[in-house]
């Protein structure tokens, strides 16, 4: 095996050197009846050439990968500058472990410190951790944290939060003694802030709102913060499209207490749903309640600045079952991608991308709404996603669009909202050219007319 440096001959010599006769002797602490006395029933080894062609063949079965796409719903196709993957591919970053030895991990540590700072700047919060697995698990952790902070057990979430995120939250809280209630969204505006504000009472640990929400509608976060705080509850704000922070008022400026976001939009490929990176930010006063790793500034005895993992006593390797979370790893490499992306695009680039998303989505929405038989069921303000109601079953409509026009037109909502068979979610970003948008509009018109 070419990844094993020692040749069979060398291994034999090593066995002899430590007084063993054969490789079998290495396993004599395993009882005989537990040894697998046959070869594994997995395939025989492939060469590099065979392996690549095998994966390429499987890849060709992903028809969607090569089509113009208007899919969002928690994963977004944005442009990724070439240097992001170049830096990610440096051995020093991608083959390093968790920075437990700060003297030889300053590259990773300083990067995370910059990542934490960028997350604070974007969300308008005081402090951020080194990242969570993704947005959905980050949201679940935020709910658990709200319970820890407030010692209350009722959590009210908007039913316009990404349905898969809500499923994850349900799984996480099922044994935590937390009552999760859903507040309805408004069928006309697509917003849920009013419903949430009405539901909060003095037993409520937190209100959970996503903005822009699953339907792409921007919520009145500031009003919700006021409603939550009036009852002593926390406001948890969740974002699946972090790029909206380039344009929308930050949750921190609106008064949020915990902000979680999926950071995939920042330089991370779609990759069928992962690995992505969860952003997690909160207020200074909750620093000791936050889950996950934190990097802080430190100095050596010569006064040189460096960075270390800090406030580790919150974590499972020290506090075990009393830890703030069971999380151990963060999403280091993906956080690096987000950091490189955000620094490359910079202050101006993030705003420009957000602006283009807003404008292109508005253009697409206008044009689609003008097709005969099509409408936009929700009136709330939007960023780069919106719900479209077509004249026929959305699954059928979009399947036709894929087959006939090779366009991935959107996400049908029936799986999550069975009362909306004709509705689908369309997302437009800076990478969708006007020609693509026009082709989508013409395609929808054509395939709905058959």
């Amino acid at each position, binding site marked *: 095996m070419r990844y094993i440096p020692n040749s069979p001959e060398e291994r034999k010599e090593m066995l002899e050197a430590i007084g063993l006769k054969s490789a079998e002797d290495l396993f004599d602490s395993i009882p005989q009846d537990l040894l697998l006395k046959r070869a594994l029933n997995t395939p025989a080894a492939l060469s590099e050439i065979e392996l690549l062609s095998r994966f390429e063949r499987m890849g060709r079965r992903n028809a969607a990968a090569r089509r113009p796409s208007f899919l969002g719903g928690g994963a977004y196709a944005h442009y990724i500058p070439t240097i992001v993957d170049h830096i990610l591919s440096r051995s020093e970053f991608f083959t390093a472990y968790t920075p437990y030895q700060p003297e030889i991990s300053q590259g990773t540590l300083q990067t995370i410190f910059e990542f934490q700072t960028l997350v604070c700047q974007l969300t308008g919060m005081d402090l951020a951790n080194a990242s969570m697995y993704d947005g959905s698990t980050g949201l679940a952790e935020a709910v658990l944290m709200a319970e820890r902070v407030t010692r209350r057990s009722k959590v009210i979430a908007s039913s316009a939060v990404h349905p898969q995120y809500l499923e994850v939250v349900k799984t996480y809280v099922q044994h935590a003694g937390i009552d999760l209630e859903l507040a309805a969204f408004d069928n006309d505006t697509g917003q849920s802030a009013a419903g949430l504000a009405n539901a909060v009472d003095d037993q409520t640990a937190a209100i959970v709102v996503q903005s822009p929400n699953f339907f792409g509608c921007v919520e009145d976060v500031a009003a919700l913060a006021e409603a939550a705080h009036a009852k002593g509850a926390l406001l948890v704000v969740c974002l699946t499209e972090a790029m909206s922070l380039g344009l929308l008022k930050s949750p921190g400026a609106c008064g949020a207490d915990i902000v979680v976001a999926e950071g995939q939009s920042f330089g991370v490929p779609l990759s069928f749903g992962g690995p992505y990176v969860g952003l997690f930010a909160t207020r200074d006063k909750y620093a000791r309640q936050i889950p996950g790793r934190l990097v802080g500034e430190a100095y050596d005895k010569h006064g040189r600045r460096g960075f270390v993992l800090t406030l580790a006593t919150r974590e499972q390797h020290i506090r075990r079952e009393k830890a703030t979370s069971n999380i151990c*790893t963060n*999403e280091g*490499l993906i956080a690096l991608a987000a950091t490189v992306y955000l620094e490359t695009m910079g202050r101006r680039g993030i705003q420009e991308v957000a602006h*283009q998303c807003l404008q292109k989505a508005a253009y697409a929405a206008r044009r689609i709404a003008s097709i005969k038989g099509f409408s936009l069921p929700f009136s709330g303000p939007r960023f780069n996603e919106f719900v479209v109601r077509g004249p026929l079953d959305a699954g059928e409509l979009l399947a036709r669009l894929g087959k006939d026009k090779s366009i991935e037109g959107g996400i049908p909502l029936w799986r999550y909202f069975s009362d909306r068979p004709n509705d689908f979610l369309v997302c437009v970003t800076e990478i969708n050219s006007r020609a693509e948008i026009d082709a989508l509009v013409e395609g929808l018109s054509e395939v709905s007319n058959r």
Partner: protein
Amino acid sequence: MSDGITKVTSHISPNEQLIFERSQQGRIGYRLPALDVEESPVNDLLPPHFQRDDDLEGMPEVSEVDVIRHFVRMSTWNYSIDLGMYPLGSCTMKYNSRLNERVARIPDFANVHPMTEEQDSQGALQVIYELEQHLAEITGLPGVSLQPAAGAHGEMTGIMIIRAFLDARDGEAASGRRTMLIPDSAHGTNPASAHLSGFSVKTIRSTSEGLTDLEHLRELCAHGEVAGLMLTNPNTLGLFERNIKQICDIVHEAGGLVYMDGANMNALVGIARPGDMGVDVIHLNLHKTFSTPHGGGGPGSGPCCCTKELEPFLPVPRIVKTDWSAGEPTFRLDYDRPKSIGRVKAFFGNYGMMLRALSYILTHGNDGLREATEAAVLNARYIADGLTSDYDKPFNSPPMHEVVFTDKRQSRKGVHTLDIAKRLIDYGFHPMTIYFPLIVQGAMLIEPTESVGRQELDQFIAAMRSIANEALEDPELVLNAPHSTRVGRLDEAAAARKPVLRWQK
């Protein structure tokens, strides 16, 4: 010279500032195509009170060249597997093949959206299905979910499955079964995951041999409220729990299930299978055993594998093979699993890691997987043999893929494990895992993996022996190590007392 420079240096890189300190107003690192649709006034699209008014102040303004130099300079401050041996015990720092990276970047996979309809993402589903099949064969446990994003996440999934199974089996009576047994040598994630699933934790002692104390296990099981046992095997001391079958029997007889922490599977692949030992559910770490990159702390991937009996409880959706079309199998997503614990992550898990792990399994082939295990255990045994004369080894039994030593002899001269670890840096090695497992005072847990050649093992052994010698003859040298790095030991106490967690102007 600017303020950041405290000593004369041959290159600017040791003093690379934070990007925020480098930022210069007006610098640009990107270019987008011009907006090609008619522009509407922003206020018409979005009410002004929903808009940002801080102009993202403080975010960096740098050129592309600034970014490249910034990260390349910082990268030189990191140790990495590609630079040399990285013997962190329990972390399995093996070679991360470039071929796997290339596979993960094949555009037909990298560009697939997770909400794509099944018929347009068959290849992506096929990869998940095939990897699940192989992991089932390797562990001897047929039910597999790749959804968990990391080891601890897989643990949580496995423990929630145990809880759901018990609740289904025992109904109301299950509420009397809420104790999870965990050995004192376990990873901290074990008790934390158990707690998250609503279990209270009871600790099992280890024997003087470093194995689970069967008597204590029987005693704890006799109380009747045992939901299960979480066991690492080989355990965190690198020792195979040779009574594993008996252990499983005791727990099963008490009505509980056995969860195995699969962090140490690199000692077993192709040699022995947890399913054959009586284990009910296990998590694997694709970033350990199956070589997906650790990336400076993630992404991980923590598949959960279980018995047929537990399979209905796995997270949804499941990927099922339905038929064949045009010579290829077809796959669909099955959401209709009423007993499932639910979803543990949006979408399908850390998919990019699955591509890499499948590539690892196919590149090695079945014989190569076994060969890797043999080479990994051999390397650990070789180190165990080479260091016994200079370091105290708390357990006599021969280790599997990792070996634990202590600072017992060196501490008489005031040199402790931390100091030995820091001094190892000066010899060009990444230190081993230190102070874990917690039950061994001054523990040094060494896991070389199969990715180290004999010459480098000999150099490592020589370095460790040299440090043992220094500890006797010149302890100050060791106590002040490392001497060769960009920064010395950092004041972690001061950092924790007044935490500075972000840059501010």
